[in-house]
């Protein structure tokens, strides 16, 4: 177990390092970052000045090493657009996005668990097909379109939720639904498959034979075991949801990391952009690491591999 964790940790570090390099190099896709920072129609003298101020006149690898070294020391740089330090800016918004991610995950599970259990109990019946149909249909709906439909329903027709902004819990309702429903089908399929397997197991037959009520068997005995792989998927899905927050937060003007990412991209705020790409990637790496270790702990067979 110890060596497995050490190996996994080393891999995670290497991935994070590679991602940091890619995130830094992303900016150079624009050709000359100095030109982009100076803005259109800038004079050559201004461009040279920008180049010097931001240290863009040095070799790229030196720039990267310098950036990474400062990062390790906790200096995340200065935003070009907001003129503030990137660190506090990004961490403040991260709270909003993490909150949104967790709410979205809750929405996904709230939809997926009952549907998945129902589909498994009534396997191959019309109920099963209906649940599968909901899943396929849900996956076909583009999340930004779904978000606009929600706005029409809750803000325009019913007038119960605010269209945009952040601050109260009401501001999170629609974004969490719009972000979370998309993850539901994957959970549903996993829970359905897990439940079907578990419901056929011997100990369930024993529980039934003992005369336990059906609900106790399904929820206390079966679901508890079928939910184990869901924990691993939840970690990975949370990573996806954080990435997907770019679109949803922008629509609802929810002041999180995703919206900040969108702003930094449109304003060509390179230092912020690099940190957000790196940050979301590192969070994903940490989540998968945690889920792998949890899995290895739950299932000793994995540790050997």
């Amino acid at each position, binding site marked *: 177990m110890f060596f497995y964790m050490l190996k996994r940790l080393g891999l995670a570090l290497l991935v994070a390092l590679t*991602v940091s390099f890619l995130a830094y190099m992303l*900016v150079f896709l624009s050709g000359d970052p100095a030109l982009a920072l100076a803005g259109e129609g800038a004079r050559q003298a201004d461009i040279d000045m920008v180049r010097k101020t931001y240290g863009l006149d040095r070799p790229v690898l030196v720039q990267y090493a310098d950036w990474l070294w400062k990062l390790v020391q906790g200096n995340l740089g200065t935003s070009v657009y907001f003129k503030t330090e990137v660190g506090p800016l990004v961490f403040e918004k991260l709270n909003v996005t993490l909150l949104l991610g967790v709410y979205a995950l809750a929405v996904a599970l709230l939809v997926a668990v009952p549907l998945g259990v129902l589909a498994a109990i009534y396997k191959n019946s019309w109920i099963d097909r209906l649940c599968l149909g909901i899943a396929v249909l849900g996956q076909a709906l583009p999340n930004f379109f779904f978000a606009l439909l929600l706005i029409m329903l809750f803000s325009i027709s019913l007038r119960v939720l605010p269209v945009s902004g952040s601050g109260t819990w009401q501001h999170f309702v629609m974004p969490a639904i719009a972000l979370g429903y998309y993850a539901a089908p994957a959970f549903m399929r996993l829970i359905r498959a897990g439940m079907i397997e578990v419901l056929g197991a011997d100990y369930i037959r024993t529980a039934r034979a003992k005369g336990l009520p059906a609900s106790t068997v399904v929820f206390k005995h079966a679901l508890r075991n079928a939910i184990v792989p869901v924990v691993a998927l939840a970690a990975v899905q949370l990573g996806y949801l954080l990435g997907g927050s770019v679109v949803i937060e922008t629509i609802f003007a929810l002041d999180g990391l995703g919206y900040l990412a969108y702003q930094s991209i449109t304003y060509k705020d390179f230092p912020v952009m690099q940190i957000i790409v790196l940050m979301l990637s590192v969070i994903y790496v940490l989540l998968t690491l945690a889920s792998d270790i949890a899995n290895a702990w739950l299932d000793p067979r994995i540790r050997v591999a």
Partner: protein
Amino acid sequence: MAVFATRLWRNKALLAGSFILLAIVLLAVFASLISPYDPYVQDLANRSVPPVWDDKGSWLHPLGTDPLGRDYLSRLFYGARISLLIGISVALISGVIGTAMGMLAGYFGGKLDMAVSFLVTTRLSMPVILVALATVALVGGSLPVVILVLGLLKWDRFAVVMRSATQQVRALEYVSAAQSAGASTWRILVGEVLPNVLPHLIVIATLEAASAILLEASLSFLGLGVQPPLPSWGLMISEAKAYMFFSFWLIAIPGTALALLIFAINLAGDGLHQWFTPQERG
């Protein structure tokens, strides 16, 4: 043939999915013949005409016009071309990259396998939509750029599935037979392994095509994808957003079209999966 027809008839998902998909492909291919108007010509006297089912609508513009007076039905037909082009070309590019990586890793194993696994893990850790948005914004948004960026980003699932599929096939007898017969590695990979992993490849390709279409729509919706005046469905929704409270059909029509296309592709993909692995059903 009769067996084939019966199997197809029983596979309702494949049947329904490919039927809708075929209809959309035909509309896209013959867009220039069946469109009532030029999708780019603005008619400022007829702006925001509602669709025919509205009281103020007319058959002159069955789906109405947009705020610039362009015929919505014609734009919808031409938009199908963009979505299908994105789906097919992104699946092709990422499919070639991912399949090559996955097959090489699965066949040779060892260091190469470790390298490919590392690349996949790294790629998976970076959020696609964010990297795609940033790249398109930096390079400049256009249809070829969006296709290339998505194609270069979305090979991960191909690599993962092709790797394990190749590992399974490699252990089979006819591959070792081909090896001992002195066939070259290239020949074994293309001649023996590829035909056997093809079913997996096709199913993944449908899923990736659908996801690429959704991604393009999201990028264009945020204004950082395909640029106006191209009638990308995502861009049409984006342009209509400012009018959504008064003319909701402007959003509902391209949104429904997108959902229908994705639904059809996913359904066909599920059907193909069942077709190739009949024993897994039920």
